[in-house]
């Protein structure tokens, strides 16, 4: 597995994609393009110099200064060339990795070659490594062709060797992480669709772009580290605003380190998921075991608090912090709930064997409840870690507890609904179930908006009765009478949800009994 050049899957891709004639053609094309880029850089520099000469009199530059600038222009050309090459390699390798890996497994399934690979003695680790490096092997070859030119350009451009090494470390780590994301996505689909792959690729790049753009304003600036562009900008741009901004528990860290940490940790979870599912039949894949889901929930919640950064223009008190974090944690827990949906066949076996509520193939709700407890535990720890900025108050902890209970109940309802959908004859039941859940919340919001026109209190009551959003009004300074009234509405809302959960559990049981 470590000796990549002996990995049969990698060798297969290498042979198919890098035959001698193709390799020579690609190398020659890359060199020709590099020469064109260098000429472009040189031309741009010459235009700049000409403009400077023309404006020398206007700006009263001395002939010595002009001569110095002209002398330095050679270095500037190489520096520009070096930066261009670095960005180009980053773009080519990450784009190619995502696009090729995102169609890899689904493509093999579609071509009916996947079973043959699964039937061999190749381990999941070997398959994973082989595909990760093999699918974009041509892009790696292009980078390899550019490497000597980049090193020379960096040297002539006056860049340190550390900068070049860090740049390549980022390109490689980014490409591997993005490739892993692509493989994970491709494992989720039964057949490939080039259109979907392209849309997914551009979507991910849009997210990366957004993360990079919002790094100076968002409360989680460190997330921008997931975008390799952020780290590359910090390495190649001299502007100081590109260099700072990444924090872990408020302490500043270099973007490169942040990116590598995020790639390492998130990548490790992706690897775990892929190792668990890669050789499984499509219908029998289960993303994570129940215990792993708990671990993942803890990791994601912890990461949230680690990457959090209070902004001076939006001061948060303890309750505001709690609500913000529980809201984010709710999204994380919903994702965990999705990962805990049990395939029908396993659920049926679990039901027949009466294997206990905590069994890995049972219903998700006991483990969802545990994930909520984990979420609350990390809230307490997170608030303690941020106590100097947001405070550590009993009231906030009580609000957090209430919010987690409410979110836990609604999550249980929604996840049980999705599990019930899985037991129906719907096509793509989870996707359709998600659409129904989304439609429910949209309908609730529309209803609330309509009621808000006549009375805001009625709108909030509907929120409290139908959605977990109502609970987020708790603890706001609206007076004791309002709070008590809201609490009653929340409790009634929870009672309604418990009734729905009971109905869903009965529905699931009757379906399991009938099959």
């Amino acid at each position: 597995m470590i000796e990549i050049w002996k990995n049969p899957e990698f060798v297969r891709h290498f042979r198919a994609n890098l035959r001698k004639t193709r390799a020579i053609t690609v190398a020659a094309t890359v060199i020709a393009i590099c020469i064109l880029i260098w000429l472009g850089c040189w031309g741009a520099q010459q235009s700049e110099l000409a403009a400077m000469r023309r404006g020398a009199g206007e700006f009263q530059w001395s002939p010595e200064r002009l001569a110095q600038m002209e002398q330095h222009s050679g270095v500037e050309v190489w520096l520009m060339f070096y930066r261009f090459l670095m960005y180009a390699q980053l773009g080519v390798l990450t784009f190619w990795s995502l696009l090729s890996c995102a169609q890899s497994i689904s493509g093999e399934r579609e071509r009916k070659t996947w079973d043959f690979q699964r039937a061999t003695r190749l381990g999941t680790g070997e398959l994973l490594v082989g595909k990760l490096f093999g699918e974009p092997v041509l892009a790696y070859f292009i980078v390899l062709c550019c490497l000597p030119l980049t090193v020379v350009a960096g040297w002539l451009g006056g860049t340190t060797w550390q900068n070049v090494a860090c740049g390549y470390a980022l390109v490689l780590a980014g490409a591997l992480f993005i490739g892993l994301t692509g493989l994970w996505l491709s494992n989720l689909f039964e057949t490939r669709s080039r259109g979907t792959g392209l849309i997914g690729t551009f979507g991910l790049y849009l997210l990366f772009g957004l993360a990079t753009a919002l790094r100076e304003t968002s409360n989680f600036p460190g997330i921008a580290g997931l975008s390799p562009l952020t780290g590359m900008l910090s390495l190649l741009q001299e502007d100081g605003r590109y260099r700072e901004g990444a924090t872990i528990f408020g302490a500043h860290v270099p973007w490169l380190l942040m990116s590598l940490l995020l790639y390492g940790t998130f990548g490790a979870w992706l690897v775990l998921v892929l190792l668990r599912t890669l050789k499984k039949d499509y219908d029998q894949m289960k993303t994570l075991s129940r215990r792993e889901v708990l671990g993942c929930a803890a990791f994601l919640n912890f990461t949230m608090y680690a990457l959090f950064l209070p902004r001076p223009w939006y001061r948060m008190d303890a309750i505001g912090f709690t609500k913000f974090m529980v809201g984010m944690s709710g999204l994380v827990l919903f994702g965990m709930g999705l990962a805990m949906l049990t395939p029908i066949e396993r659920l049926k076996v679990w039901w027949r064997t009466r294997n206990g509520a905590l069994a890995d193939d049972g219903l998700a709700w006991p483990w969802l409840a545990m994930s909520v407890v984990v979420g609350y535990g990390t809230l307490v720890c997170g608030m303690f870690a941020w106590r100097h900025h947001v405070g550590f108050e009993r009231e906030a902890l009580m609000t957090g507890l209430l919010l987690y209970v409410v979110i836990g109940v609604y999550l249980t309802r929604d996840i049980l609904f999705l599990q019930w959908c899985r037991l129906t004859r719907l096509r793509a039941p989870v996707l359709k179930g998600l659409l129904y859940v989304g439609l429910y919340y949209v309908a609730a919001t529309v209803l609330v908006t309509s009621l808000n026109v006549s009375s805001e209190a009625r709108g909030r009551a509907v929120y409290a009765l139908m959605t977990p959003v109502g609970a987020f009004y708790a603890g706001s300074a609206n007076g004791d009478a309002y709070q008590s009234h809201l609490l009653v509405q929340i409790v009634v809302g929870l009672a309604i949800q418990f009734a729905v959960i009971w109905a869903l559990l009965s529905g699931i049981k009757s379906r399991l009994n009938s099959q």
Partner: protein
Amino acid sequence: MIEIEDLRKEYDDLVAVDRVSLTIPPGEIYGLIGPNGAGKTTTMRIVCGLLEPTEGRVRVNGVDVLVDAERAQKSIGYLSDFFSLYEDLKVWEYLDYFAHAYKMAESEIPGRITDVIRQAGLEVKRGELIHGLSRGMKQRLGIARAMIHRPQVLVLDEPASGLDPKARVELRNLLRSVRDEGATILISSHILSELEGFCTSIGIMERGRLVQSGRIEDLISAGTQLRRVRLRWLGDGVQVWTVLDGHSGVSDSKLNKNDGEFNFSGTDEELSQLLAELVAGGQRIVSFGEEKQTFEEIYMKVSSHEVM
């Protein structure tokens, strides 16, 4: 050797394989017959460790496929019904990939590739891209891939589907040569004539159930209390009529001027005795023989006739 025990596989509301138990001894060629959707492919994929059963267990050469799929797969070669190959590889590269994927010893691989290419009759195509091979050649290459690691068990799902008659003959010859090397072959088809004269045992699957299974001779003898015998003679047939009318084991006789047929209930010994009686009585017998049962006839007796 393949041992299948109480195998069950469910998909949503459908029971694809229902309590199938089966043992295929080493060196056997076992034909799994049944209509589309009978559960053949599901059974074979479970045997290969590609699919987990809902219940039951499968052992291949003593290794539980569910417990240690990778070890079991060491001795299994698998070819699915519809498949494609890596068209951008050359023939030898394709086989080399799978030889390494099955973790064969490095020194053994080149020789083995040459052997299977020869067995598959693809010597002239060794260095060609798979993209340029004909359908039959691709099918043979698929089988060559399945046997590259010298598996003791070969699982072939509808290997002849879509092949022209010549390619079918070539395929049959190839499989015979594999059998001669001592491999156990589990082969499925919904076309009975494909398996005729080739399998040593058959199993008939319908709606997920194995409705009949065993060695062909046993199935024939079990399925045929009465054997149909045809005969031809010279001269008048008085003697024939007399002897047959007087024999307790003969029934449903249809006798013409110089030929006829009848059902016979009895052992081989008794049948030869009957022939001896006819000859001893002075009847000039030209031919006398039992009508061989075909797969179709056996199948028609035990199934609900869903197979071609």
